[in-house]
Structure formats: structure tokens, C-alpha cells
């Protein structure tokens, strides 16, 4: 094995080990990734990693997986990106498939049905909690409040497809800031670095 393959395998193994302990996905993983990539392996510097996390959050997809891909790329190019992504995906994949088999097998059992009866309201609470955590990062002024509220109404009553709603959101942002700039209204939009925690804080 050449030195390069050893490095790629090491990247794969690092993210493979991190994945199963990050219950709840996203942000639980960030401090663990930081410790592994910066302190233990000394692959990257602290500032680099902070930048990468902010950038990873701006790209569609889970922040944990995106960060892994980014860090893999910084260490060893495209091959490194693939090694890290595959490494972070495999444990999750295996665990979820096992749980799927388990669910298919036991879903009609009365005790399991009863458990899910109790779990469903808790899931609603989890989703409300996600919204609660995100509110500061998302609603920064009156305009964003109106955008958020109208998107809920459009989704509920006009049944706009959620994917289209997301595209509309980006377009609305560009349009609104464009208009505000034109009329000389100042808007604080460069607040990404301070609130990585809330930034797109959808996955908890």
C-alpha cells in the first residue's frame, strides 16, 4: 500500500468511527469532527475548520455529511472527499436498515403500536423544538418574519410544493435585498459566522 492509500484509509476510518456516536445528526457531530481533525490528527487548523462548517451549512444536505466531504477534500482532494463521505455514511446506513427490518417485523405488535401512539406527539415536539432553535437565526427583522409567516400560509392553504417553496425563498431573498439596496435601506445579512448553532439549525 502506498502512502496515499494509507491516508485515504485513515480518513475513511476517522469518519467511520465518528458517525455512530452522533445521535441526532448535524450539530452533535461538529465538536467531534473538530477534535478528530484538528487536535488528534492535526490535518487542519482551527480557523479552517470553522470556515468549512459555515460553508458546509450553506450547501444543501446534512451539515455533518457536507463537513466530512469538505474536510476529506481539504486533506486529500476528490479521493479524500469520497473516502470521508463513504466513511460517514456506512454506519448510519447499516443502523437505519437494521431498524427498518425491525420496524417491518414488529410494527403490528400491540405493544409497538402503543409505543408509537406515545411517540407521535413527541415527534411533533421535536419539530417544534427545531423551529424554536432556529427562530433567532431566521427571523432577524420584520421582513423575514413576514416571509416566514407567508411561507407557512402558502404551504398550508395553497399547497405549494415544499421544494418549490425553498426555491421561492432564495429568489425572494435576492429580490428583497436588491430592492432594499436600491432604496438605501440597510439590512444586516452577514451574520452567519456568529450563529453557526442557529444557522439553518434544522437538524438537531
Amino acid at each position: 500500500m502506498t502512502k496515499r492509500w494509507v491516508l485515504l484509509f485513515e480518513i475513511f476510518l476517522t469518519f467511520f468511527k465518528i458517525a455512530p456516536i452522533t445521535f441526532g445528526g448535524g450539530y452533535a457531530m461538529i465538536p467531534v469532527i473538530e477534535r478528530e481533525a484538528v487536535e488528534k490528527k492535526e490535518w487542519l487548523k482551527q480557523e479552517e475548520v470553522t470556515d468549512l462548517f459555515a460553508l458546509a451549512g450553506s450547501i444543501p444536505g446534512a451539515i455533518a455529511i457536507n463537513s466530512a466531504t469538505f474536510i476529506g477534500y481539504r486533506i486529500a482532494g476528490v479521493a479524500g472527499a469520497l473516502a470521508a463521505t463513504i466513511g460517514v455514511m456506512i454506519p448510519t446506513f447499516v443502523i437505519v436498515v437494521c431498524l427498518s427490518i425491525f420496524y417491518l417485523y414488529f410494527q403490528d405488535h400491540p405493544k409497538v403500536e402503543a409505543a408509537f401512539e406515545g411517540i407521535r406527539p413527541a415527534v411533533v415536539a421535536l419539530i417544534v423544538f427545531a423551529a424554536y432553535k432556529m427562530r433567532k437565526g431566521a427571523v432577524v427583522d420584520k421582513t423575514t418574519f413576514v416571509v416566514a409567516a407567508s411561507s407557512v400560509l402558502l404551504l398550508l392553504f395553497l399547497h405549494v410544493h415544499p421544494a418549490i417553496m425553498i426555491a421561492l425563498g432564495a429568489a425572494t431573498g435576492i429580490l428583497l435585498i436588491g430592492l432594499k439596496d436600491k432604496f438605501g435601506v440597510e439590512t444586516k445579512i452577514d451574520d452567519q459566522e456568529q450563529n453557526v448553532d442557529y444557522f439553518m439549525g434544522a437538524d438537531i
Partner: protein
Amino acid sequence: MLWLLFKTFFITGLVSFGGGYAIIPVIEAEVVKYGWMSTQKFTDIIAIAGMSPGPIATNTAIFVGYQMAGIAGAAVSALAMVMPSLLLVLLVALFFYKLNHNRIVQSAFYGLRSVVLGLIVFAAIKFALPTGLMNTISLHTFSLLAIFAFSLFSLIKRNAHPAYVIVMAGLVGMAFYS
């Protein structure tokens, strides 16, 4: 079926800003459109996806894929979900390293974040309906509301772990509803 799963989750992956609960309505819209499963069963799947390690949206995709077409379906869904992110990350890493400092990108996120919040609120309402949280007043509705309120309290005030909340709610359900 596999192609349909791939197409569905590739598009989902492409728009999944945040990758979390905001994307659940996107997946739900597709799942209901194709008649793959009921919203109630989908809520069960979200619960399991939320208990599993890893990102909830990707987990949900793997779960739906497995239910529809076994291991191959799960693999295709996972791949389809990750592929757009992987390509975009590489693209950004190669060309747009200063992406976050671009004013157009910042403006887009100014709108995006509010819509993502709107989607999460929409998801909460959408899943509260078939759960029976908004049914007529009865002891059963009251007990469900109590589970909801206590879960939310534990999450916000006690910093409880989501997986822990789900497990506790499951135990309460087992004790009272069987």
C-alpha cells in the same frame, strides 16, 4: 421503482438546505403523491429516523427506500440523497471558496432561512393533525397533549437529548395505550 426512488431523493437532496426537519415535508409530499405510505406511518418513520444516529433527512430517505424496495431501495435512496451535496461541495471547494461572502448568496440565504423556518412550522402542523393532537376534547387527546407538552419542556428547559425524549414517550405509550 429504483429509478423513481433515485429521482425523488436526488431532487430532495438538491433542495435540502439544512438537511433536517425542514426537509421532512418535501419527502412527505413525494411519499404521499406516489401513495407509498400514509402520513401516520410516515410519522413513525420520522420517529425512528430521529432516534438513529446520523442526519434525520438522510435516515428518512434510507427508511422509505427500504420499505419500498428492500436493501437496493435503501442504497439507491441514500446515494441519491448524498450525491447532489457531494457534487456541490466539490464544486464549491474547487471554485467558490469565498461563496459565503458573496452578496447574492447572502441575500438568497436571507430569504431561505425564513422559508426553512416556515417549512419546519408547517411540518409541525402537518404531523400534529393525523396524530390526534388537535382532535375533539377527550381524555385521549389530553394525554397526547400532555406527552407533547412534557417532551417540549424537556427539550427546551432540560436540554434533553432527542433520542431520550423519543424513548421515554414510547415507554409512556406502552404503559398507557396498550
